[in-house]
């Protein structure tokens, strides 16, 4: 839970700092017209962007809690069977990096009004994402074939749980991408979809970051993490 609490502390500190600026030295009981001025919200804070940030905070909470649970489960286990690192794992990760880059390219193309480059980048991004999801499924099968059943290997169970949660979030992202395509088909211009593509790109980068963290805690860094969880009260 230390991890989750650290995340929440950071979040609350930011939130409180922002609120202090809104409330210190303010005298709400005094009525005046001056304060009827439009609320100063910076132009970059559009409703969809704020919603994405809030949603990412929720998603962070989901993954922070899952990793906390993983670490607490490690701390409670006298022995831990570590998972192998099949080559497919690295291939999948590479494909997800590619998807993220492609969406970034689509965003840039939308900004620069390049229709063709935009279409290609968007297509590549979607294709890579689907390939990643298929690759993750193959990975589940591979681990199963190698005898790492969820029911017998708790590490395997955590991998399936975390990768499934991660994959579902990517699927949600794909739904948002289809919305971009439908809008374009309905005759929206690139400039009009730019905002939405930008949000998708940020979301993909974020999910790439989450995947890297999961990759580290589940595979590359599992052994040192286990040693840490068993060694101290960290959980």
């Amino acid at each position, binding site marked *: *839970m230390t991890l*989750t*609490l650290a995340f*929440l502390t950071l*979040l*609350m500190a930011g*939130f*409180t700092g922002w*609120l202090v600026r*809104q*409330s210190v030295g*303010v005298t*709400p*009981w*005094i*009525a*005046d*017209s*001056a*304060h*009827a*001025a*439009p*609320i100063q*919200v910076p132009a970059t*804070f*559009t*409703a969809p962007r*704020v*919603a994405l940030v*809030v*949603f990412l*905070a*929720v998603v962070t*909470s*989901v993954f922070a*809690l*899952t990793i906390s*649970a993983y670490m*607490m*489960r490690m701390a*409670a*286990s006298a022995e831990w069977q570590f998972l192998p690192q099949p080559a497919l794992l690295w291939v999948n990760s590479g494909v997800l990096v590619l998807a993220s880059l492609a969406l970034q390219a689509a965003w840039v193309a939308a900004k620069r009004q390049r229709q063709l480059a935009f279409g290609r980048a968007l297509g590549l991004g979607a294709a890579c994402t689907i390939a990643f999801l298929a690759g993750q499924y193959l990975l589940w099968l591979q681990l199963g074939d190698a005898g790492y059943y*969820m*029911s017998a290997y*708790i590490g395997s*169970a955590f991998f*399936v*749980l975390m990768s499934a*949660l991660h994959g579902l979030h990517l699927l949600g992202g794909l739904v948002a991408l289809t919305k971009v395509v439908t809008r374009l088909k309905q005759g929206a211009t690139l400039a009009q979809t730019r905002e939405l593509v930008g949000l998708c790109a940020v979301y993909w980068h974020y999910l790439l970051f989450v995947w890297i963290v999961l990759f580290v805690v589940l595979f590359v860094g599992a052994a040192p993490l286990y040693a840490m969880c068993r060694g101290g*009260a960290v959980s």
Partner: protein
Amino acid sequence: MAHSAYDAVSTAPLAEVEEMELVHPHSFVGKYVWSQDAKVIAIQYAVTATAIGLVALGLSIVMRLQLGFPNTFSLIDPSSYLQAVSMHGMIMVVYLLTALFLGGFGNYLIPLMVGARDMVFPYLNMLSYWVYLAAVLVLVASFFVPGGPTGAGWTLYPPQAVSAGTPGVDGGIILMLVSLGLFIIGFTMGGLNYVVTVLQARTRGMTLMRMPLTVWGIFMATVLALLAFPALFVAALMMLLDRLLGTSFFLPTMLSLGEQSPHAGGSPLLFQHLFWFFGHPEVYIVALPAFGIVSDLIATHARRNIFGYRMMVWAIIAIGALSFVVWAHHMYVSGMHPGFGFLFATTTLIIAVPTAIKVYNWVLTLWRGNIHLTVPMLFAIGFIFTFVNGGLTGLFLGNVTVDVPLSDTYFVVAHFHMVMAVAPIMVIFGAIYHWYPKITGRMFNELGGKVHFWITFVGTYAIYYPMHYLGFQGVPRRYYAYGDTAFISDSVQTLNAFITIAAIVVALAQILFLFNLVWSLRHGEKADPNPWKATTLEWQTPQTPPRHGNWGAKLPVVYRWAYDYGVPGAKDDFIPQNVPPEDVVPADGSGAARA
């Protein structure tokens, strides 16, 4: 007095709050079923939550009949008793209180109180309700599957929740977990809307520090829910995998009927941590909207500005932040490290400080106020009493040494029903009576409301006060029957029978309440647009009930906070938020009032 600034404002562009594109359907289905109007969604949430809440009320009567008159009702066996306990708890906490405060009051009041036309994402808002309804239907379905609903207690502790012998282990627990997952997904959709609407869609002049405390309470509760519900989501998912795919997240190796279970190494304590990491903030997810709403009820019906507004806002935020570091006080008897107990007892007692600030401020608002004992005010005062009572026993239970002997007794049942069931429901009743004229355009029957209040208030004390004594006697909770137990005296049975009769009377009084609401829809007196002479924006709408889009051609502009009651020098004892200083009618009829 800042007249000079007024001209500058009147020339400022109105474009700050973007005009929303609203969907205006013309069919009945589009208007009232697949509606994207936050007010209709609010009523859908409220009706669904009330309906499932009545089921939970019925279940509580089933429990009380067994406890009050054991061996009388052959329909109630130990299994169905445990199922009633479990479903009553889960429904009341999650599907009724959370849904009604956030989905119901949040949807209705946030856009109106901050001066917006609707929620920022109306389509998502509609989806939120339908996912919630699906969650409720899955939950209801669990009553009809073989084996019935889960009987694992509302906390669903493993291993017993998913082990043979527990009622509902076949289908009930699976549907329960699926339903919780759906609820959380639906709530997240709504929650995003509430947060973004408060942050982005406030009208001109509605600074954060001018928002009514109702909005603050609902806003902070939503933030808590968005961050805490994932813990329940993850826990439910892991338990579902344990139950369906044989993983061992929570399940250790067990012997059942002489056979060893296939699970190995799971940690039941891990579930408790996850559950209460959600479970404790959940208390405040319910309490913070109640705190906010009751502040507005008290200010309005005592005709006084709220005492210490800024402190009230900061108390809401402090309680919200602290609520994440007290969860293990639900686990003193779980066998965790005693050092943790000390830590969590300390944080638990610290959270009493901002809470006490709020109680003092409510009382100080009432002090020398022009108190109108209207039905909403009666419920608000009833809330203060009940909340203080329940809060004080919370201080007992927050201490490890006191909690350990009391933890499994009726003292705990009495404590959390006072603080988390009766106190918030008092606010819900008060709020329904308060906003009923705005929502329906009719007044409720006042006498009916008062009778409802007195039966509910006195009746709930008759139910829960004696339970404290049962707790001191050591009567264990969760038991189906006590039989011949040496330390339980005969008078316990008499007291239990008394409690049951009180519970039945209180339950019947709720029928009176629902009848009053339905009857007044047609027969109630036509309501004034602002019957309580309140200052907040929802009472200043051009139509009552407000139409889709809430406001006429122009959004309201806010010049003052929500608590300008009894302003010296003004003719009326209230000045609505959208009245500019130069339009305030002075008491002596000459010159501008100081406002």
